[in-house]
């Protein structure tokens, strides 16, 4: 079955420290990949996306993500975390171009990021 896994439910980092949030997917082929962020009480904001091409993609707010086909991973990174980055982060995939793909975004279970000052 197709799935998205975010192994870390909670992560705590100090402000200024680097961050990596993990995401692994299980599909028959490479889907399209997204990271969304949900701040407390807010909606979902798109951070970045990967469709094809350069496997290192840049997003908003200083975030980047690297697609690794061999590991079926799409990990999100930020070199220096700010207190305002505290939020819930969701990895998501959509199987465009795959047989029976459609446009159903399948989300991971989310990683809650806490930033210590």
């Amino acid at each position, binding site marked *: 079955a197709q799935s998205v896994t975010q192994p870390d439910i909670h992560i705590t980092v100090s402000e200024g420290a680097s961050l990596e949030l993990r995401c692994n997917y299980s599909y028959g082929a490479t889907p399209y990949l997204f990271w969304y962020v949900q701040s407390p009480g807010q909606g979902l904001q798109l951070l970045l996306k990967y469709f094809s091409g350069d496997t290192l993609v840049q997003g908003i707010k200083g975030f980047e993500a690297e697609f690794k086909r061999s590991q079926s991973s799409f990990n999100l990174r930020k070199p220096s975390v700010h207190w305002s980055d505290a939020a819930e982060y969701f990895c998501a995939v959509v199987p465009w171009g795959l047989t029976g793909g459609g*446009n159903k975004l399948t989300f991971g279970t989310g990683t809650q990021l806490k930033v210590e000052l």
Partner: protein
Amino acid sequence: DTAVSQTPKYLVTQMGNDKSIKCEQNLGHDTMYWYKQDSKKFLKIMFSYNNKELIINETVPNRFSPKSPDKAHLNLHINSLELGDSAVYFCASSPTSQETQYFGPGTRLLVL
């Protein structure tokens, strides 16, 4: 210049009531969606409309009925509300059915 908007933002109601949530997008997108986020923050698609036509209908109770009067609006009507319907409901839209989805702020529904 709100892109995807939802009303109301909060909705508190009693079991058995019928309620509607409205969604509007001013992005000129063809496709709109409803997602449900449960108490554990898990997000799952419920419905999708493309140019007012239903294209995704997940396993959702018949008490939930989406309606798209035009391609800029997608409303969600819920009959006979149950405790388990308490959740955050997100509307989203995308330019076509094969492009990036943009989400609204969510409607927090609490059924008492």
